């Protein structure tokens, strides 16, 4: 997926997974998440585009290019792990 396609996508959590607190649960397995990952995944409700999710994060923490990059990297990872679709 290209970075533009990612930025315009409206991700939601893959039906295999369920977010519970700081844990992402799937059939017979658990992924332990850090606060950042939880924050981003919580915003993936299928209605928000990633650019909108970024706005929410920037509103809270201020804009910073390195934060922007980290969010991009995180979402790429989420897609690669199939946590979001």
């Amino acid at each position: 997926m290209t970075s533009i396609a990612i930025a315009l996508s409206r991700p939601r959590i893959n039906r295999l997974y369920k977010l519970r607190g700081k844990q992402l649960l799937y059939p017979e397995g658990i992924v332990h998440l850090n606060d950042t990952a939880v924050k981003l995944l919580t915003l993936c409700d299928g209605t928000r585009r990633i650019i909108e999710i970024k706005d929410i994060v920037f509103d809270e923490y201020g804009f910073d290019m390195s934060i922007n990059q980290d969010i991009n990297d995180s979402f790429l990872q989420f897609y690669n792990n199939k946590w979001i679709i």
Partner: protein
Amino acid sequence: MKTIYFKTILPRTRVKTRAAAGQPNWLLAELSYRCPLQCGYCSNPVEIAQYQDEIGTDQWKKVLKEGRELGCVQLGFSGGEPLVRQDLEELVLTANGLGYYTNLITSGIGLTEQRIKRLKENGLDSIQISFQSHESDLNDYIAGNDVYLKKIETAKLIKQYEFPLTFNIVLHRKNIDCIKDILDFAFSFEPDFIELANTQYSGGFALENRDYLLPSLEQVKQAKRIVDAYPKGESGIIYVFPDYHQGRPKACMGGWANNFIIVTPDGAVLPCLSARTLPGLNVPSVKDSTLGEVWNNSEMFNIFRGEDWMQEPCRTCPDKIIDFGGCRCQAYLLTGDKFATDPVCSLSPQHNLVTEFVEKERSDEFVFRNFENSKKIMANIKGKPVIQ
């Protein structure tokens, strides 16, 4: 500082790894030892006939609540066959309300459309269905019942109701050579996960049938080659390795009383499926203790925590933090000493017990898992280690 805050490090942890804090993640609710199948590789204890007095719905609800309070997030409903309990739907509803990820681990028999619909409504999260083979004759022979077509029907129903599907098959001498066909068959259901579980001989009926089930080293190696080369596609393949052939012990249950709590149909609380076979330990019960009390204070759960209990060669072995000395039940059942190094380990002074058995000629005598055979076996054991 903000940058550091947003550095996303995502530790990916499967259930096998050690939990960070001293709290369990997993609760396995074995609702009943009743089962329409009679698979001789079953991990249920051979004493099932003795444990038929099942705890009630309210008691199970209390267990689910206590498990969640203790930190469990993954819940497996298993058995026997959990669908024989008519209160399964009710327990799923309770579990869902408590915030568990709920897994139904089933033979597929008894899962009617009416029940699956209800389970969906009540929030069941995923279903694992077991097959015994890719073809009907062997499937139904191992299962001791004509269930093959019904299982196929059920697997389709699970997909139709959009549950995450895990296809499970237990591998042994009689089906492992067909691994390619088994994988083709498994993929035809478009599962999310395929679990290829080499039979574990750490107790129960599997150990009773070890002489029948254990494959040769060549069979195991060939199967692994085929699995490794097989195009995986979108499904994840979970391969439970055959510890008898590997020379390394498995980190049983991710370490003793580290991650798992098991509650049996009659309310016993155990750190592993076979723990009740270990001698000299009081078996805690949900009838007189909370899960928290058992987890924190019982001898059953504390006895093999940490490293102090270990003998040589485990005590000074660098791998003790990986495999925790292997399976305690297997160690006891093969050597008579529950503190011994698991003899599947090539470093165990009693490793010959395993290697000699692997090379031995197999038998064609197969003991079906049912209450009648359970009674017969119990009459013969009289509390001694089962082996030799």
